[in-house]
């Protein structure tokens, strides 16, 4: 079975807030759900599938489904691969729709890490009995250094430079200046990235994404339903997902899970990287973008540094416009999980509703890519390819 053109993204909504001290996480989920359903032209009563991950408060989907008032559910999925989970949710929603398990699937994400003071230099959240914890926690792995280790190795193997990584931030900032909701709207230069404080070698402060409150939601529907709604139809063409870890101690930091999820998605979609007009690439850190671009096949392994340099990711300037909302690096990284905003901006591009300064002309084919967890130890990867009908 394939999911190619078996389901459509009919609703997409990114919460405009970036700091929400006076709202609860559950309220933010609900506001996102309301926004995405209104965008699609559907109501709460239409939803029969619900998808959420670890940011949703409560036991799996139980508490949020009840809070939202979802009474018609016949399909539930709480797959959690960190920030990449929401791309997997879209894929799983398409599978469920293709299998007849639901017709209207709602995906929500929300969180308040900015108000709650949670960031990438805090110890990562772990649950009791996580088997790797006793072997790693004495060494103080935090989010940023578990990406820095991959960056350091990439530099050693391929000669990638901090200047090249900085170009990724420069491109995101060039886009964010046009997004009135972006947390950071000032353009930055390569020199400014390199002059920002070193957090964990070789990653500077400006190599790191923002910590923001907020959220987003998506509505995935059966094509027959999408056809009668008023919004442009965005078809799901292909998807891939995987988990990559430490390989029993044969650690290899030169590739990410995108090397597996990407080819699966491209094969299902029947397209190649050269066909992609716009790409949302998970940007927890600049190195995350560079490695995913290589692993997806936008350039050869080891050539990511040269590929991203000199504005090649800037819309209207380079060959591969990326993260035209400003991405996690500048716009938004709600709940410390950026996957849903990657899909939302791809939908805006395919609808022709991105900001005019960053809209890709006649954008009909887009990709969204997520890496969730820790690039340097274990992470989930998800790739999604979409088209405008």
């Amino acid at each position, binding site marked *: 079975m394939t999911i190619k053109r078996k389901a459509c993204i009919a609703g997409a909504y990114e919460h405009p807030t970036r700091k929400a001290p006076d709202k609860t996480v559950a309220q933010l989920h609900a506001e996102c759900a309301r926004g995405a359903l209104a965008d699609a032209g559907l109501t709460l009563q239409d939803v029969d599938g619900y998808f959420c991950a670890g940011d949703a408060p409560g036991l799996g989907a139980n508490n949020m489904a009840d809070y939202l008032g979802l009474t018609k559910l016949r399909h539930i999925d709480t797959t959690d691969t960190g920030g990449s989970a929401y791309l997997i949710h879209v894929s799983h929603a398409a599978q469920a729709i293709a299998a007849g398990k639901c017709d209207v699937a709602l995906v929500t994400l929300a969180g308040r890490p900015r108000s709650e003071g949670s960031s990438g230099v805090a110890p990562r959240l772990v649950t009791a009995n996580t088997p790797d914890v006793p*072997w790693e926690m004495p060494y103080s792995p935090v989010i*940023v250094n578990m990406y820095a280790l991959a960056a350091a190795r990439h530099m050693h193997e391929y000669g990638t430079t901090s200047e090249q990584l900085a170009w990724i931030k420069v491109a995101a900032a060039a886009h964010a200046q046009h997004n009135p909701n972006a947390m950071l709207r000032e353009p930055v230069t390569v020199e400014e990235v390199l002059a920002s404080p070193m957090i964990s070698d070789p990653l500077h402060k400006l190599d790191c994404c923002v910590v923001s409150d907020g959220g987003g939601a998506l509505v995935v529907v059966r094509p027959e339903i999408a056809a009668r709604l008023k919004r442009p139809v965005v078809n799901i063409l292909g998807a891939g997902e995987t988990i990559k870890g430490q390989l029993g101690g044969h650690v290899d930091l030169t590739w990410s899970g995108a090397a597996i999820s990407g080819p699966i998605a491209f094969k299902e979609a029947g397209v190649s990287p050269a066909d992609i007009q716009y790409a949302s690439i998970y940007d927890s850190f600049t190195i995350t973008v560079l490695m995913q671009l290589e692993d997806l096949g936008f350039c050869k392994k080891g050539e990511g540094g040269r590929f991203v340099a000199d504005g090649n990711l800037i819309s209207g300037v380079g060959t591969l416009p990326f993260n035209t909302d400003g991405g996690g690096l500048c716009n938004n990284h709600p709940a410390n999980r950026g996957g849903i905003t990657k899909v939302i901006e791809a939908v805006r591009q395919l609808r022709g509703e991105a900001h005019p300064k960053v809209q890709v002309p006649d954008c009909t084919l887009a990709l969204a890519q997520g890496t969730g967890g820790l690039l340097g130890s274990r992470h989930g990867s998800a790739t999604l390819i979409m088209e405008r009908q």
Partner: protein
Amino acid sequence: MTTPYTERPLAPVTVDAATEHFWTQAKEGLLCTRRCTSCGEVHWYPRALCPFCMGDTEWCSLSGLGTIYSVSVTRRAGPIAYAIAYVALDEGITLLTNIVDCDFDDLKIGQRVEVTFKPAEGGAMVPMFKPA
């Protein structure tokens, strides 16, 4: 520029069925992992079942010698800078660790290192690595 190693407090280690023998050995200054009794492969981190073939495993000793596969000096996650690293042991497994007893700014990928042990709260000795 220099960034000298500074001792930092280490939280008590987790002692359970998976780790108890390891910490006993570490107190003797010995580094160990587990080897599969079916396929013969060593793996890291130690598990009761082999991650390559699901066979049973047994403890085996390690030389404590290796090279730095990757290293990052974390400067802004707390008051004390520390060097987190992956060290590729001569036995062919790579483990997450800290590099200690050196000037962090001289650390390089490919550098030879050897195991040393640092005390944690509660008395356990935690294996780390220093330049060989």
